[in-house]
């Protein structure tokens, strides 16, 4: 294809949602329902989907390694502004990852748009009585624009800009029912929490800008590598903060942004509340795309990471995936339950990124996007069907009323639980992706660090033959470069990757990268058991068993407009993921992870270490989903009774989980209240101190004025003068008439002056030093 064709197509794909946004803003009210919706669907996501598909096909099937590399190399750049002396370019980061993400986003988003047309047709598009149908799709389109832009950005600053824009859209959409207090509050919470993350992001940006002198992703990476090699720039300064080098701080700072968007542990509080938005929003933004952007960011800046930073990332991820999964077990609100499972899965991805499973994490991102979107849509279907009933305890037995929903939902449950047949290459997307992450985690925590790598020279092809685990790990790289994918023999990212790596001798990496603490791995494993349990619980309570609330049950229904997307996504979940996306990721990996200090480990290659990891996992978690399902079935087979009993038994744990470890309360107390208090103090200070000082100054001047005006002119002078008068009269021996009036005071002041004259005169007049006098006396007769 011609030069920049892909960029043009992608750019067009980004532009069209923007167009539809403005269209809807200006003509939305006139279009009305459902036309506005269709504009949103077709222009807002239809066009991008087509473009995305074309690009996808063209990129994957009609370009070979070399041409892809070339395209990546010469991707389009346009100078946007000068930041100081540094030029900031608008450009397209064109590589397999982009293409894959782009397609995934457009595909899922499109179907969610379609779903929304149906979903919003009901009364749920009304905001206190007024129809805001068009506005919803305007926001969705705007989000489409921002998200696609985010995926395409070749520049950290633009990444940040779109980053904020998706944040804005999520703010607007969470607060879509802004007449409801909780909705608008949730929106605000989401935005501000994200801002906290962005604060870190900004600091990361500053470091990148200052030390690497650019904001372009690729340039930044190369400079980073150079500086590492030469020990200059960011590596020159001995500055450390809690044991972190400047480079680490940079990495962590950038990751903070991801923590905000992907709702990682300390900043996760906004995501559950974000469920206040319409369900399609939850599906699109808070399950499939935006929240995944954090992972995408980490993937993009992977080359700027240091071992310590990655360790931090994996720790955060690990905590998140565990804690959130635990909370998910006790949720009764169907959307909340899904929200927490999302958090947990995001934790998996971040954890994966942290321990080097770059491909796996992204792969998990995609698969998760599919099935989680589907699950949310399913829940939306349920909620819509049940007249906005979200409490699972009131549901049950809906499988008759909404079969499609029921079974698509089940597919989702299977997928997220990582259902598959171990040891054979059969399973749902979630199965592969999660296993890969775990495999890499296993490798990092068990294989890594055993033996010493210092003897290890730069890797070569012949290392393949070696069998000792010790030597396996580094070879993973070469491995997935050579034959990362059995399906796609040709795999040319290899060469550039090899070059990229030969520049950074692996030995160093092995020296500096500590092995993963084992507890992290074990937490991940345990959570792998918990996930199927709460998902099964959710599904069972909703669809299986006997109806627990007649009223809800009889109204339940489902509409084609809404379950068609479900079916499509279900199919996607089953097939598309593994055989399409993973290869793309793997292809991108070579260039995108050519980091000097850290390395990405392919979790799906046939090298001893990984194979052993997998073979270990077969028995480790292979049948976790069975166990989880079984447990959930046993407990919830007939209603909530058993569950309640357990609840009473373990009430302390339960309360803790139900209240989400009281983190919200803590934040409310410390941050919100604290900040408001601080603000109030400042306001008070401003009003009663700063301002008062100036008013006081004014008042004092006035006093001073009246002092000199009245006191000095009247009493002061009079006082002084009276004193003088007094003394002069005492000298004169006249004690009487000490009373002096004003005029004489005036006079007295002059008299006081004149007294000086007198004294001087008498003094100098009588002594003989008076030359005039001498000459006079000479003249005297």
């Amino acid at each position, binding site marked *: 294809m011609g030069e920049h064709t892909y960029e043009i197509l992608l750019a067009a794909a980004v532009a069209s949602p923007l167009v539809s946004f403005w269209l809807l803003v200006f003509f939305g009210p006139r279009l009305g329902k459902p036309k506005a919706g269709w504009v949103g669907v077709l222009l807002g996501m239809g066009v991008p989907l087509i473009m995305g598909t074309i690009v996808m096909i063209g990129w994957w099937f009609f370009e070979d390694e070399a041409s892809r590399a070339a395209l990546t190399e010469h991707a389009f750049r346009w100078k946007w502004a000068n930041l100081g002396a540094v030029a900031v370019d608008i450009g397209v980061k064109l590589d397999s990852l982009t293409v894959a993400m782009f397609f995934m986003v457009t595909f899922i988003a499109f179907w969610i748009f379609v779903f929304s047309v149906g979903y919003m047709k009901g009364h749920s598009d009304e905001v206190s009585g007024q129809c805001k149908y068009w506005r919803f799709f305007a926001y969705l389109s705007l989000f489409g624009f921002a998200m696609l832009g985010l995926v395409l950005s070749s520049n950290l600053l633009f990444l940040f800009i779109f980053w904020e824009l998706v944040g804005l859209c999520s703010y607007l959409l969470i607060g879509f029912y802004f007449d409801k207090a909780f909705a608008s509050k949730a929106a605000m919470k989401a935005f501000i929490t994200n801002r906290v993350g962005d604060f870190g992001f900004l600091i990361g940006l500053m470091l990148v800008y200052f030390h690497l002198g650019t904001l372009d992703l690729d340039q930044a990476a190369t400079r980073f590598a150079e500086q590492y090699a030469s020990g200059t720039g960011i590596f020159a300064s001995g500055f450390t903060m809690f044991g972190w080098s400047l480079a680490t701080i940079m990495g962590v700072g950038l990751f903070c942004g991801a923590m905000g968007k992907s709702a990682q542990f300390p900043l996760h509080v906004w995501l559950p509340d974000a469920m206040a938005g319409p369900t399609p929003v939850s599906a699109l933004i808070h399950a499939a795309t935006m929240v995944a952007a954090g992972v995408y960011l980490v993937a993009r800046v992977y080359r700027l990471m240091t071992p310590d930073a990655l360790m931090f990332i994996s720790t955060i991820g690990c905590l998140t995936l565990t804690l959130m999964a635990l909370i998910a077990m006790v949720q009764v609100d169907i959307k909340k339950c899904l929200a927490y499972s999302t958090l947990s899965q995001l934790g998996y991805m971040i954890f994966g990124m942290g321990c080097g499973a770059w491909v796996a994490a992204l792969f998990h991102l995609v698969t998760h996007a599919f099935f989680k979107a589907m699950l949310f849509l399913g829940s939306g279907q349920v909620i819509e069907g049940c007249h906005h009933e979200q409490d699972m305890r009131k549901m049950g037995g809906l499988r008759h009323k909404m079969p499609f929903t029921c079974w698509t939902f089940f597919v989702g449950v299977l997928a997220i639980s990582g259902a598959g047949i171990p040891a054979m290459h059969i399973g749902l997307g979630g199965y592969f992706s999660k296993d890969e992450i775990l495999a890499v985690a296993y490798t990092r925590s068990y294989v890594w660090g055993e033996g010493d790598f210092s003897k290890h020279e730069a890797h070569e092809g012949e290392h393949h033959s070696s069998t000792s685990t010790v030597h396996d790990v580094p070879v993973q790289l070469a491995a997935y470069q050579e034959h990362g994918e059995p399906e796609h023999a040709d795999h040319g990212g290899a060469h550039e990757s090899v070059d990229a790596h030969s520049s950074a001798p692996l030995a160093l990496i092995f020296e500096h990268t500590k092995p993963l603490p084992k507890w992290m791995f074990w937490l991940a494993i345990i959570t792998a058991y918990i996930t199927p349990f709460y998902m099964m619980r959710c599904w069972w309570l909703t669809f299986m068993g006997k109806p627990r609330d007649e009223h809800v049950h009889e109204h339940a229904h489902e509409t084609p407009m809404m379950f068609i997307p479900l079916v499509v996504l279900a199919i996607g979940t089953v097939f598309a993921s593994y055989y399409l996306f993973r290869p793309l990721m793997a292809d991108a990996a070579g260039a995108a992870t050519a980091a000097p200090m850290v390395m990405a480990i392919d979790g799906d290659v046939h090298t001893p270490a990984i194979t052993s990891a997998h073979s270990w996992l077969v028995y480790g978690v292979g049948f976790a989903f069975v166990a989880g399902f079984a447990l959930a079935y046993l407990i919830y087979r007939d209603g909530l009774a058993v569950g309640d009993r357990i609840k009473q038994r373990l009430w302390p744990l339960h309360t803790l989980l139900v209240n989400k470890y009281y983190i919200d309360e803590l934040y409310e107390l410390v941050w919100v209240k604290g900040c408001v208090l601080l603000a109030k103090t400042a306001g008070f200070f401003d009003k009663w101190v700063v301002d008062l000082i100036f008013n006081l100054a004014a008042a004092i*001047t006035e006093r001073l004025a*009246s002092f*000199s005006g009245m006191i000095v002119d009247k009493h002061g002078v009079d006082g002084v003068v009276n004193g003088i008068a007094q003394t002069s009269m005492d000298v004169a021996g006249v004690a009487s008439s000490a009373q002096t009036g004003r005029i004489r005071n*005036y006079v007295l002041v*002059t008299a006081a002056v004149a007294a000086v004259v007198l004294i*001087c*005169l008498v003094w100098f007049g009588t002594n003989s030093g008076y*030359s005039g006098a001498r000459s006079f006396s000479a003249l005297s007769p």
Partner: protein
Amino acid sequence: MALLGQTDLWAGIDVGEHLFLFSPMIVLVCTMLAVVACPIILGRGPRSIATVVWLGLGITLFMTFRVAGAVADGGVSGLSTQPGGMLIADNLSVGFQFLLLAFLAGVMLMWWMGSSATERNAPEFFILLLGSALGMVLMVSTTNLLMIVMAIELASLPSYAIVGFEKRNRVAAEASLKYMIFGAVCAAIMLYGASLLYGLVGSLDMAVIASYTIDNLSLGPNRVLLAVGLLCFLVGIAFKVSAVPFHFWCPDAFEGARIEVTTWLSVVSKGAGLLLLARLVTVFCAGGGADANPALSITFLTPLAWTIGIIAAVTCTVGNFAAYKQRSVKRMLAYSSIAHAGYMMMATAVFIHPSISGSTAGITALLTYVVIYLLMNLGAFGVTAMVVWDTGSDKIEAFTGLMRRSPWLAVPMVACLMSLVGMPPFAGFIGKWWILVALGRLQNTATSSGMFSLSTLGWLLMIVAVVNTFISLYYYLRIVVQMMFRDDGQRTVRTPIVGLAMVNGCAVALFALLIFAQPLKRTAERFTRNMYTASVEQDGKHKTLASAIQRGTP
């Protein structure tokens, strides 16, 4: 008339020419006589008297123009071309005559509008007015001690009377009493100082005294005696200028007097005093300039500069602060006039060794300021007068809502007040500006180093001046606030059209003088330089005379 027995006393002196040079004053005197004579012929009708006065002023103006033509090239200094001469006619004196006549016309207008209807004793009023005017003219055109004393007295005595002109008015009576007594005391002290100076040098001519002083600085005790004499003499001028601590009469007299009288005193009497001071300063500079040893002259001038400077600083500060609390606008303006006298004195404190360029900056600034100050005060007092006549009160409340009641009074008032503050776009700013520049000039003096150097004095005075500007803003704003922001629905003010024309004219002139600051400044510079060169020329003669006197054998 310095030496008796000299037969050729009048040799080389064209008496006619000299009489011509002082014809304006003579005409003024004639006018006074006419006013005395007038009632016999025309009766005591105020308007008729006033007409006569107008006529007299017209002729005076005409003569002044002719004299101005004669002295245009500068330096023609009447009788005192002869050592010991008593009167000087040069640009300065002529220029002041113009100012005085203009202002006199303004005051006459105010009288015409305000008091002419009820005036009983028009002849007396005008005689007193013209008498003080004559005195002020004389003040500006001499450096002779005797003439100075006479002039000051001639200016003061009628003022005492005119302040208490309304016989039935308690306040006026009290004011005049205070004014008179205080004036008398100051005059007495001044005379005593004069006698000492005469005793020390043997000449009544300030120029001679100056050159003698600077030549004989080495004589220790005389220096002190001289300082004492000068100090005593300065008391008289300080009284005229109402410099602290000789300012007590000012607010009382101003408040007690009739408003046109207040206007009259507020500008011209101070202006005359300041110009007299300026003349003396110039004479001293000239004496220093001719001196072979500049450093010596500086050592003499510096303390004098500091003295005047400090008095000036104190004066404007006290004036501004005292004005804060006043309820009576008249009294407030009185204090403000004290403050402005302070600013102007700062300019006279700029002693500069003539070898430095721009040595005349101080006096130039003073002249410029006097002109602008005249306009500002005429405007401000004019508006106040009209308000007073209409409401019968000079309290600040009388101004409430003036913007609605009579915008054509309020707007010029704002202009004049802001000009008094020294805010652009009004000429008050440019006046202050020249003073600041003059003070800045001190930076360039030969001895611009050390703790008590002239440059330090300059910057200090500058800071005092701007800080005072800032302080003064507040009380001027109080009037503005009353006029602009508040309104208690009083009835509109009836204003004579002439008065409106006058005050608005002042406002416009103030604006114009900022835009066209150049000509005014140029003129002032020329006047000063001429006066200066003239003094320097004559300094030589003075020296010889001084030495002759010292030898005792002429």
